[in-house]
Structure formats: C-alpha cells, structure tokens
C-alpha cells in the first residue's frame, strides 16, 4: 500500500531536539534527495523514545534497527550503508551494557522492556464501556477459576504467596489482610475499594477506573468469595465524574451478564457492588476515616485496633484495598503466585504504577517492576528533565512522602528502600524537581496541603503542622533564625510520633527529608538570607548591571510601582524598598542588564 519501502524515524522529543535531531532530519532529507531516494524512503519526526541518554535516536523500519547517539554527520553513512546497501552501521548500534554486544533489533533491547504492564494491561487497549472487550481479554476468567476450582483458603494462600503488598501506600500484605477478614466470623462482611485518590499529582487509580473498571469489579468479587462477603462498596471521590460513569456502566453490564448478582457462574455465590461518593477530603483515604465517611459520619480516623477486619463498615468485618491492588488480582490468580513473585525485589513483588509529574519531559503514567531505579524512571522512561535543566530532587509518595536527591537516583524502588531513604512509596505520585525549585518553598507547599486537609481531630496534626507551616513561611521571608532549623526538626519528630493517623504521622516527611538532603539550602535561607534557587521573592533583589544598561528606559516604563529611576541614556537604578519583585523589568530588558542577586 505505501509507496515507501523504508521509514527513518528520528526522535523529536525535547531532549533529542536539543541534541540536533532537526539537523539530522534535514541532512537525511538532503542525502536521500541527492541519492534520488525521496520517493521510496520517508523521514519522520517522532515523539520521545524515552531513552534520552542515548539520544538522538534514529529507528529504521521495517527492520526495527535503532541507532543511538546519532550525529548530523553520521547521516551520510546511514544512507549509504543501511539504506542503499542494506548493511547495518555497527558503530552506531546500541551496545548491551552487560554483554557489550551490539544489538540491532529494537525488540531485543532492554530499555524498551523497562515498563511491564500488569495493572495497566487493558488500559488504553480495550473500550472500558464494553464488557465484551474485557471478556475477550480473559476478563472474569479469574473469578470463574476461583469460584469453580478453588476454596477461599486456597485463594488467600495464592494471594499471600504472590507477595503482593497494598498499593495504597502503607504496603501491608494483601493476602494477610484478606486472611484476617476471613477469620472474623459475622453474618455480613464487606469488601471496600478505596478509590479516594487524593495525593497532588496522582492519577493512577483514576486511569485504571476509567480505562479498565471491570478488572477492579472482578477482583472485588474474588476478594468477597475469599473473605466471605457478598457486598462490595467502592468509595470514590465525586471529583472523578468520568470514572464514576464508567464504573456505573461496568457494574450494570456485569449484572446484565450475570457476573455480579446472585448465583454467579451457577455456583451459589452472590456478590454485588455499590458506589459511595466522597467529597474529596484527603484524610478519607485513611481506611477508618473512609469507613466513617461511608457510614454518613464525619470523615475522621479512629484509633486502630479495632482494625476494619474486625469492626469496619457498620461494625462488620471489612476489607479495604486500593484500586491498583485489586486490578492486579485477576492476573495473580490466572498466572499464579509464582509468576507474580518472580517480578520485583525480595520484599516487594510485582509492578508499581507511577504518575510522573513536574519538571519532566514525558509527563505520564508508567508501570515498572519493583526494583527499577529512580534514574531509569526519570531518564530512560520519563525522558529526562525539561528544558535541559539539572535534576534536583524527586518527591515520592505525595505530601506524605519525602524528597529524594541525586544520591538516591540509583536506589531500586521498593517499599523498604524508599523508607530507608527517608521517603515512602505512597500511592505512586512522583513529582520531579529541577534546579529552579526551592526546597524550603517546596516543603511549605506540601505542608500547606496537609494543614488544609487535616481533619483537626488530634492536636499534633492540627496545631503542629500549622506551626511547621508558619516557621517555613518565616524562613522563606528571610525572618528565620538558625535555631529555627532545630525547632523544625524537633517539631516534625514529635508530630510523627504522636499524631493519630497516617496523615499526621507522615505529614512532616517532606520537611525532614528536604532538610536532610538539602540542609545547605535551609542554612542559606536563615544565615545568608538568600534563596539559592531564586524562588523566595522576599530574599531576591533585582539589580541593574551598570555595564550593560544603555538607559533605554524600557524597564522604568514597565515597572508597575515606579521603583526604577534614571535619565534617558544613563544607567538606571532599582530602589529595593519600593520593588515588589514582579520581574517585569527583567523580562522587558533587551540588554541582559537586569539580574537577580
């Protein structure tokens, strides 16, 4: 069909762009033109391959050859050797870092296998509003297998042996949680899906519910069978209207097909699922608060024990799992515990979905095996830092997590390693920070969130976080003292030790980890009254460089508060007592005469 017999794909991602992919495209087109090949070979600029450290990348179709670190002057060789003579240019091929062998077929390259989609297996593949597409992808087979071939104990054993740990953040063993809920006898039990995704920058659960709602429904039914429950509830925030709509459609289709309701697969097992809406309070992601919210009470946590497995929704044994935890269950049942536990690290099995946000080129949703390093995630999947800036830190686990620095880049990601490094896995939000981000303002930003979201029940969280936030504010304004850094640290530790629930116990994490990893920056704020990243307005001073200033008056005219004085064609001056640091003058100046001190 195509008139072209060969395609040359040149990476046009932001990173490769800065390393001359435009010139490569130009040279390729010129070279092909010169050889009269324009009609049979097409040059295409593509999106980012993700593997920017090896960029620019050129991929040849149909034979899937990938050339790395291609320079504009390599083009002639590629055309003469590969395109015309059909011989691969060995020196430009990717070399396996371990075996040192050149690999020509991209299908055999490790870096394209960094991502493994288990939870996201159907996301972006099936139509979420059509149950048949889910069934065609082996949907509900796991439920069928469980109901017809396995006892509840066997299911729990399988889940336990898979080594899966809860993906909501704390990382408790899923199988163990099910076992506890099974042991507690009751006339009624509940399976609850926690879809109250509240971390800033997190959208893993929303994407799963919008892209593959049936996987969660199926897993909830499997859980119901295992623990002896016939009622399922999904607690989802009302801010997720599309996820809610698709869940409703999915539940109805499952009922119409007899996959939810009474006597499923003719086995006498009954299970149905209802939705419960949350109003978007962060604390309701904590399971006891979530249960109170579903009961119509205030969304406040209570002390555990009793755990929900003993006394949960309406005082009945309740098992609460996160969306992502559930979505992996059908795969564990069908492919087996052994398969699942073969993926990941010693104590963290399987894969984890992460939402990449912040100063990264490929903002997006990824799923990688546990044990993948932060460097691989950021630089080999995420496409590196935006605008060629320098990596500074990565906040994992949202406002409850910590900020890891460059020295942690080669840490394999799993539950325990992240805790050891001073952060947490959390639900999977990853916010990437670059050299322009100030670590004091960043800690203040996360504290602002937790102060806003604290339910106010316990004093350490309600009052302590407020004080932390105030102190950080003072430091940002240049009113901090060196002793304040010790106060920050002490207060953080006390809050962690004494707060009632997970929200308060983790809220000082950003402060502690940022002080650990970027202590100099905190000291610079309090002793030198300087913000090294140039973010804290109170600590900045706009100054005119007398050598560059030509006296064009452009800055004085744009200044909204008339802080700039000076005669035409003479050096101008900014009065720091009037300046509001809006930066308008710096933007306007054509002579680079204004800088920040």
């Amino acid at each position, binding site marked *: 069909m*195509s*008139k*072209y017999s060969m*395609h040359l*794909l040149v*990476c*046009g991602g932001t990173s490769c762009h800065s390393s001359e992919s435009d010139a490569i495209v130009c040279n390729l087109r010129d070279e092909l033109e010169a050889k009269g090949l324009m009609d049979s070979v*097409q040059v*295409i600029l*593509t*999106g*980012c*391959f*993700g593997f920017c450290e090896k960029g620019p990348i050129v991929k040849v179709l149909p034979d899937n050859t990938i050339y790395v670190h291609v320079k504009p002057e390599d083009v002639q060789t590629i055309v003469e050797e590969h395109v015309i003579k059909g011989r691969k240019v060995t020196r430009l091929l990717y070399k396996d870092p371990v075996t040192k062998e050149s690999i020509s077929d991209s299908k055999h390259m490790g*870096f*394209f296998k*960094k*991502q*493994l*989609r288990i939870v*996201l*297996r159907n*996301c*972006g*593949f*099936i*139509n*979420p509003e*059509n149950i*048949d*597409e889910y*069934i*065609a*992808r*082996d949907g*509900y*087979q*796991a439920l*069928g297998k469980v109901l*017809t071939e396995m006892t509840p104990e066997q299911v729990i054993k399988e889940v336990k042996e898979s080594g899966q740990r809860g993906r909501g953040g704390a990382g408790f063993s899923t199988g163990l949680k099910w076992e506890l809920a099974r042991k507690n006898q009751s006339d009624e039990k509940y399976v609850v899906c926690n879809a109250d995704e509240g971390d800033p920058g997190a*959208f893993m659960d*929303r*994407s799963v519910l*919008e892209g593959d709602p049936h996987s969660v429904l199926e897993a909830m039914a499997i859980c119901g069978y295992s623990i002896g429950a016939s009622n399922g509830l999904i607690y989802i925030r009302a801010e997720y209207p*599309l*996820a809610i709509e698709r869940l409703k459609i999915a539940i109805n289709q499952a009922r*119409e*097909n*007899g996959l939810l309701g009474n006597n499923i*697969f*003719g086995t006498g097992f009954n299970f149905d699922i209802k939705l419960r809406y949350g109003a978007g309070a962060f604390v309701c992601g904590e399971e006891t608060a979530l249960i109170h919210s579903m009961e119509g009470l205030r969304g406040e946590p209570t002390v555990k024990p009793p755990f929900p497995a003993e006394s949960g929704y309406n005082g009945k044994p309740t098992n609460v799992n996160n969306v992502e935890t559930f979505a992996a269950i059908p*795969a564990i049942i*069908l*492919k087996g515990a052994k398969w699942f536990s073969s993926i990941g690290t010693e104590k963290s099995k399987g894969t984890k979905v992460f939402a990449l946000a912040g100063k990264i*080129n*490929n*903002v*997006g*949703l990824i*799923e990688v095996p546990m044990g993948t390093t932060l460097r691989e995630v950021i630089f080999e999947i995420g496409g590196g830092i935006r605008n060629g800036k320098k990596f500074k830190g990565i906040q994992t686990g949202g406002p409850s997590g910590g900020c890891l620095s460059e020295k942690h880049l080669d840490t394999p990601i799993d539950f325990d390693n992240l805790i050891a490094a001073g952060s947490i896995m959390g639900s999977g939000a990853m916010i990437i920070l670059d050299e322009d981000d100030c670590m004091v303002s960043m800690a203040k930003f996360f504290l602002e969130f937790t102060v806003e979201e604290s339910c106010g029940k316990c004093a350490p969280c309600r009052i302590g976080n407020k004080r932390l936030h105030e102190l950080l504010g003072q430091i940002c304004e240049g009113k901090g003292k060196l002793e304040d850094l010790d106060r920050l640290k002490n207060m953080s530790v006390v809050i962690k030790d004494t707060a009632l629930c997970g929200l308060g116990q983790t809220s000082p994490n950003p402060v502690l980890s940022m002080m650990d990893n970027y202590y100099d920056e905190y000291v610079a704020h309090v002793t030198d009254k300087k913000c090294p990243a140039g973010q804290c307005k109170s600590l900045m001073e706009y100054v005119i460089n007398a050598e560059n200033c030509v006296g064009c008056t452009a800055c004085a005219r744009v200044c909204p508060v008339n802080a700039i004085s000076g005669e035409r064609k003479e050096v101008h001056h900014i009065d720091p007592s009037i300046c509001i640091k809006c930066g308008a003058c710096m933007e306007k100046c054509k002579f680079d005469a204004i800088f920040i001190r």
Partner: protein
Amino acid sequence: MSKITSLADLKKRREELTSGLSFPTKAMNPENVIQVKVAMATCGIASGAKTIMEFFHEQLERRNVAAIVTQTGCMGYCYAEPTIEVKLPGQDPVVFGFVDLKRADQIIEKYIKTGELVDGIIPVNYQTIDLNV
C-alpha cells in the same frame, strides 16, 4: 444479551469474541479491519479527544474508509494528548500523539489510506502481559 451462567459459558463467549463472530467485537478481530482507538480518559478528553473521535467517525465515513473507531482509556502519554492508536490490517499498531484536526486529517489521508507514516508517532516503550496461559 444472554446471561453467563457457568464458567463454560464465559469461555464460549470469549471464544466467540476473539474469533470475531459477534458484532461489537469486530474491534477484537484486528486482521481484516482498520481500527482507530482514541484515548478517552479525563485528561485526553480535556485536551480535545472527543472532537478528534467525532472527526474520525464522520470523516472516515465521508471518505469511504471502512474502519472501526472506538474509545479506550489512558495510554499513559499524558504529555502528548490527545493520543490515538491506529491498527492497519496485518501490521503493528501505531500510536500518534498531539493529534489535532490537522494531524487527524493527515493520518486519514496518509497513514490510513496509503500506509505512509506521518509525524507525531509515539514509540511504544512497554510490554503488556497476556493473561491467557
């Protein structure tokens, strides 16, 4: 739609669906139909995926191209929304990012009609598991 009352029923339904016997699932029988999947999660819709999907529906019919256009969930390429996947018979699916109306038009005229690639391809960088063991 008949109810599924046993595991055997489910397996039968799956067979029917994957062999392309029943209608809504022609989309699951890739070999003889051109398929266009539009990523329609909240983020995709927010960046214009609905307009793109309508465009493909309308224009493919108007230009006499037999194809199935369906919606799907998030493909993970938030930075390149709206994203679509096009599968031509007998070929690997190709994902296009940053699809505006102009690029959508190019995709129909060039890729779908003649197999000629257009700019904006997003290289696939993951493996997906197959549950069928």
